[in-house]
């Protein structure tokens, strides 16, 4: 009697702990060699040619107009950073301001090692940490790989803002909900380009379906050495940069 009870108890606990361990293992990512999960259908991506950007800030202006982003310089769905790397190793970074009157900071050419502009926007990560942390599921990834926010259910806890490694999110002061770049989802779902891509005079910004062999995006990926921001965080960004400098974070 006692023996059977001990046996049953032992058996049960092995069973339980076994399934618990199994459950844990299931969460672990198992395909270590595959770079990305293949997605069927449309899977949108974005390309930025760092060398082509002239820092005109039209993309910032177009974005604010298209998406009703507050005009104040604290809320951006996209912005452009200017990097100046000097001979002495000091790097200065600034966000360029959308009004054209500014006189850009210049140093004597000899003191500058290199200098360039880097457009930034939401990376529409394949593994978005913002989606993972949202307590109510108000921010989500669409089937075509765009991360959106439902402003009707967002409770404004700002956990997603904390979780974004790229500073791409802000709390919209009007709606009191989280807001971010949507790749202009209202436009791309009608076959148009995102506003920033549309207005870019140098075609520094490219947009398209990563799965389509003939899209400008695929061509961008074929023709350039590409890099993403903060790859070490395993967020798998879908904004790809050509000729990105190592100083850029």
């Amino acid at each position, binding site marked *: 009697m006692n023996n059977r009870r001990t046996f049953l108890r032992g058996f049960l606990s092995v069973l339980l702990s076994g399934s618990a361990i199994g459950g844990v293992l299931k969460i672990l990512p198992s395909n270590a060699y595959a770079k990305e999960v293949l997605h069927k259908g449309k899977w949108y991506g974005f390309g930025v040619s760092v060398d082509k950007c002239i820092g005109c800030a039209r993309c910032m202006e177009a974005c604010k107009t298209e998406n009703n982003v507050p005009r104040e310089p*604290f809320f951006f769905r996209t912005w452009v950073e200017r990097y100046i790397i000097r001979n002495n190793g000091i790097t200065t970074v600034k966000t360029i301001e959308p009004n054209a009157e500014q006189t850009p900071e210049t140093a004597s050419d000899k003191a500058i090692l290199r200098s360039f502009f880097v457009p930034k926007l939401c990376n529409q990560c394949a593994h978005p940490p913002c989606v993972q942390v949202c307590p*109510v599921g108000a921010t989500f990834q669409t089937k075509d790989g765009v991360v959106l926010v439902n402003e009707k259910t*967002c409770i404004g806890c700002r956990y997603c803002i904390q979780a974004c490694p790229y*500073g791409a999110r*802000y709390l919209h*002061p009007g*709606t009191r909900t989280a807001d971010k770049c949507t790749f202009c989802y209202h436009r791309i779902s009608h076959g148009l380009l995102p506003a920033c891509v549309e207005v870019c005079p140098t075609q520094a910004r490219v947009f398209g379906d990563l799965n389509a062999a003939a899209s400008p995006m695929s061509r961008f990926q074929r023709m350039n050495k590409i890099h993403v921001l903060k790859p070490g965080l395993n967020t798998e960004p879908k904004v790809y940069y050509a000729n990105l400098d190592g100083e850029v974070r």
Partner: protein
Amino acid sequence: MSPEFIRTLQDLLPQIQGFIYPNEIEIHWGLLIVVYPYITGVVAGAFILASLVKVFNVKEVQPLYRLSLLTALAYLLVAPMALVSHLGHPERFYEILLTPQTSSAMAMFGFVYAWYLMAVLLLEIWFVHRTDMIEWAERETGVMRFLHRALALYSRDKGERAVSFDHKALKVITIVGIPSAFLLHGYVGFIFGSIKANPWWSSVLIPIVFLFSAIVSGVALVIVLYMIITPLRGGKIDMRCVDKAVDFLFYTVIVDFSLEFVDFIHRVYQSEEEIKILSEMVMNKLFSSLIIIQVLLGMLIPLVLISLTKIFRKRFALNEDLRKMVYFISVILIQFGVFATRWNVVIGGQMFSKSFRGLTTYKMEFGGLEGLLYSIALLALPIVILAILMKILPPWKEMTGEGDAGGGEAVAGS
């Protein structure tokens, strides 16, 4: 959109050092989110102190048992208020309970909170006070009689079997309660520790550091309350009890300090890409709150003070008042230290840019939901609730050691 808010942000612009991402100017989690982990920490800590009596049979701290349970409850009731008021849409908070997203650490709040409140704290308090409430109701009239009847859920059984069942139930609840208290606060730590985007937060040690600082703050707070309330009621402070509780506090502070020190050494030794901006932040922005208040005033000085009472045991044994004073100063300092710990984690984690190239500043408001006044009110509210709770479930007999010293939940004076 209020123009005032925009003006606050504009005022911050010149204070930015280096480069930050343009969306990073606003510090999103302000004072309220500092208050929240502080309060849940007190809950967890006070409960651990209570379990010292029940599970580990430390008889000396019996006078603190009911006080610490009621303190835990009073603070637990206030904890969600801090969270809800900081939301952009407080009226939607129920979404987190109705449609929680399972992958979100924050969404688990409802479950952890409900579990702790319903399955642990309320149950334990009910079983502790059940026979008492029956007794009180028998002697009372009017509202209080009704209240105690109702709170006892109209149970009237004071028989031996019922009382021994109470005892057994209490034992089980406390044993379940300890991991639950750990869960409650470890979980709060996890909310921060699991954010990989933020190197100041992202550390496996954070939940454990939170846990130990929680125990520290809870125990220290109950000691403060005991040392204030007892003389106010004309009772005598039981020094054996305070000695023991301070002893326990002392060792927990040492563990807490060591853990934070390990974390510090680890960061400095590994020296990853964020180390420069983090050390700049600590030296510029957090110097007074981290080095001075948290480490020096909140840990080292209390440790030295309490050690003195141990080293010069004989001298301090003779002079009870001196010992009392040293203890009192130490526990108050520890309280400030733990609050500073929460501040440094929450605010510190948002003062540096995720580009690791610059720092922003936190400007505390005075009025409004995010302001200082409201937070002070939130910190004072548990004390008010505690006063009400002590009216309903008076812990005096146990606190003053009358009747059954060490008898616990057995009815005193019967």
